[in-house]
C-alpha cells in the first residue's frame, strides 16, 4: 500500500497539549472563535424563531400585501435566505482573517517542535 494512513498520530503523542492549551496564543484563538460563533449562533436562531412564531401566530400581519401579491410573510421568508447567505460570507471572511493565521502558525510550530524530541525519545 505504500502509505501509512496516520503518520501524524505518532508525533502528536509527544506534544504536551495541556501546556499548549494554556498558551496565550491558543487562549486568544479560542476566545476569537467563541466570541464570534456563539453570539452569531444565538442571533440567527432568535431571528429564525421570531420568523417562525410570526408565521405561526401573526397570520394577519404576515398576509399584508406590500408589492402586488408579495406579502410581508414572503419578504420575511426571503430575508431568512439573505441573512443566511450574509452570515455565511461574514463568517468566512472572519475565519480567513482572524482564525486561520493563528491556527496555521500554531500548527506548524507544534508539528516542527514535536518531530525533534521524538527522534531522540523513541516514543
Amino acid at each position: 500500500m505504500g502509505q501509512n494512513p496516520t503518520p501524524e498520530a505518532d508525533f502528536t503523542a509527544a506534544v504536551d497539549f495541556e501546556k499548549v492549551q494554556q498558551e496565550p496564543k491558543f487562549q486568544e484563538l479560542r476566545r476569537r472563535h467563541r466570541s464570534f460563533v456563539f453570539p452569531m449562533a444565538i442571533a440567527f436562531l432568535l431571528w429564525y424563531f421570531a420568523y417562525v412564531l410570526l408565521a405561526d401566530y401573526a397570520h394577519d400581519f404576515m398576509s399584508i400585501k406590500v408589492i402586488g401579491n408579495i406579502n410581508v410573510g414572503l419578504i420575511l421568508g426571503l430575508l431568512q435566505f439573505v441573512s443566511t447567505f450574509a452570515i455565511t460570507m461574514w463568517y468566512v471572511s472572519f475565519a480567513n482573517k482572524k482564525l486561520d493565521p493563528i491556527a496555521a502558525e500554531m500548527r506548524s510550530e507544534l508539528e516542527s517542535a514535536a518531530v525533534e524530541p521524538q527522534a531522540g525519545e523513541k516514543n
Partner: protein
Amino acid sequence: MLPLTTTTQAETQVGEPWLNITIFGLFVAITMVIVLRASRNNKTAADYYAAGRSFTGGQNGTAIAGDYLSAASFLGICGAIAINGYDGFMYSIGFLVAWLVALLLVAELLRNTGKFTMADVLSFRLKQRPVRIAAATTTLAVCFFYLLAQMAGAGGLVSLLLGIDDKLGQSIVIVVVGALMILYVLVGGMKGTTWVQIIKACLLIAGAFVMTIWVLAMYGFNFSALLGDAAATAGTTDILNPGMQYGGSETSKFDFISLALALVLGTAGLPHVLMRFYTVPTAKEARKSVVWAIWLIGAFYLFTLVLGYGAGALIGPDVIEAAPGGVNSAAPLLAFELGGPLLLGLISAVAFATILAVVAGLTITAAASFAHDIYANVVRKGQVDADGEVKVARRTVVVIGILSILGGIGAQGQNIAFLVALAFAVAASANLPTIIYSLFWKKFSTQGAIWSMYGGLAAALILIAFSPVVSGAETSMIPGADFAWFPLKNPGIISIPLAFFLGWLGTVLDKRVEDPAKQAEMEVRSLTGVGAEKAVDH
C-alpha cells in the same frame, strides 16, 4: 392560456414510460462508468470511507448538496408549496438556516478531530466503548429512518412515472433501486458515491433552474403575477398566506414550532452529512464545502418556491392531489406541462438519481459506522487491519441494502416528508447535544454523553410511537388503532431540550472525572488542526 385541459387528460398516465426508463438507464450507465473509474484507487480504509480525503471544497460542497437535496426536498417541497402554499415554503427555510449550525459550530472542529465517523469525535476524550456503541446506535437509527423515507419515495415515484400502480410492480422497482445502490457502494466506496452525488446535484439544480426560468418567462418574469395566478387557480388567496397547513388549531401551530426546531437543529446531527466533512483534506476545505453547499441549497430552495407556485398556478392543487403519487407529483406534472414527455422523462430520471444518490450516501455511512465503530473498535478493540475493516464494511453494505429494500417495501405509501422530518428529529435529539457538548464544554463526561444520546433517542422514538402519526387518526400508519396520547406529530420540542438537559444532568452527577489531557488535546486539535489526517496521495 388554459393549460388545465391537457393535464386532465394526462392525469392517469403522464409521459411515455419507455422514454423515462431509457433516460434513467442512461444515467445509471454513465454514472456506473464514472464510479468504476473513480474506484480504481480504493485501497485503504481512508479511501473507502473518506475517498482518500482528496476532494476539494467545491466538489464536496456539491456532493453535500446532492446528499441533502433528497426526494423529499424536491418532490415534497414543490408539492407542499403547490398545495399548502406558504406553509410549504417554511419547510425550505428551516432546511437552509440549519446549515449555519453546521458551518459555525460543527464542520471544521469535527473535521479536525475525527477520522471516519461521528463516533470518532464523540469518543475522543470520553470512554471509548460505551460512547462508540451509543453513537453507532444513534447513527444507525437515523440512517434507517432516512433510508426508509427514500425507498418509500422510490415506490411512489414509480407509480406516477412508469405507470406501475400495483404493489408488486412497485416492490420490484424498490428491489432494483436497492440492488443498484448496493452495487454503487460496493464498487465505488465513498469516492464513487461522492461522484454519483456530484453528478446528481448538478443535474437536479440545472433541471430546477431551467424549469424556474421557464415558469417565470410565462409570466413575463413578474413573480407577483405568478402568485396571483396561483391564487386564482386555487380559488383562494390563502395559498399566499401562512397557516393553510399548520394554522388550523393550537395543537397544529405548536406542532409547527416543534418541526421548526427539529429542522434547524437536525442537519448538523445527520451522520451522513457529518461523514462528508472527512472527504476533504483540511478544515479550511470543510468550511468551503459548507459555503458551497449553502449557496447551492439556498438557490435550489428559491427555485422550488417558483416551481411550487408554478405547479399550483398551471396545474392546480386539485389535479395534483388527484394524480397518482398525490402531492409528490407536482414537480413531474409541471415538467410535463412545460416540456412534454421529454422534459418529464429528464426530470423523472433526475428524481430517481436523487433517490439513488441519497440512498448510497446513507448506506456507506451506516456501513462505516458499523464496521469502524462497532466491529473494529468495540468487538476487535482496534486489533484489526484496515483490509479486515473494509471487508466487514462491504458485507455490512449488502446487509443494510437488503434491510432497506425490505423496509422500503413495507413503508410504501408513507409520507416521505414526514419520514424525513422524523429522521431530523431523531438526529437533533440523539446526536446534536452530545456533539455540541463534547466540542465546547470542558467538563462534559461519559455519563452525560450516554444519558443524552440514549435519552434523546428513546424520547424521540417513544413520542413518535404514541403520536397521531402512528395511530389515532385517519392518516396514521395504523389507522384502526388508537393509542396516541402525545398530541404532536413531531417530537422535537420535547425530545431535543430533554436530550440537552440529560447531557448536563449526567455530567454534573458523574463521579468519574474525564482525563484533562484528552480534553486539552481535543480542544487544541479541533481549533488548530494539528495532527488532523491529511489527503492520501496516489
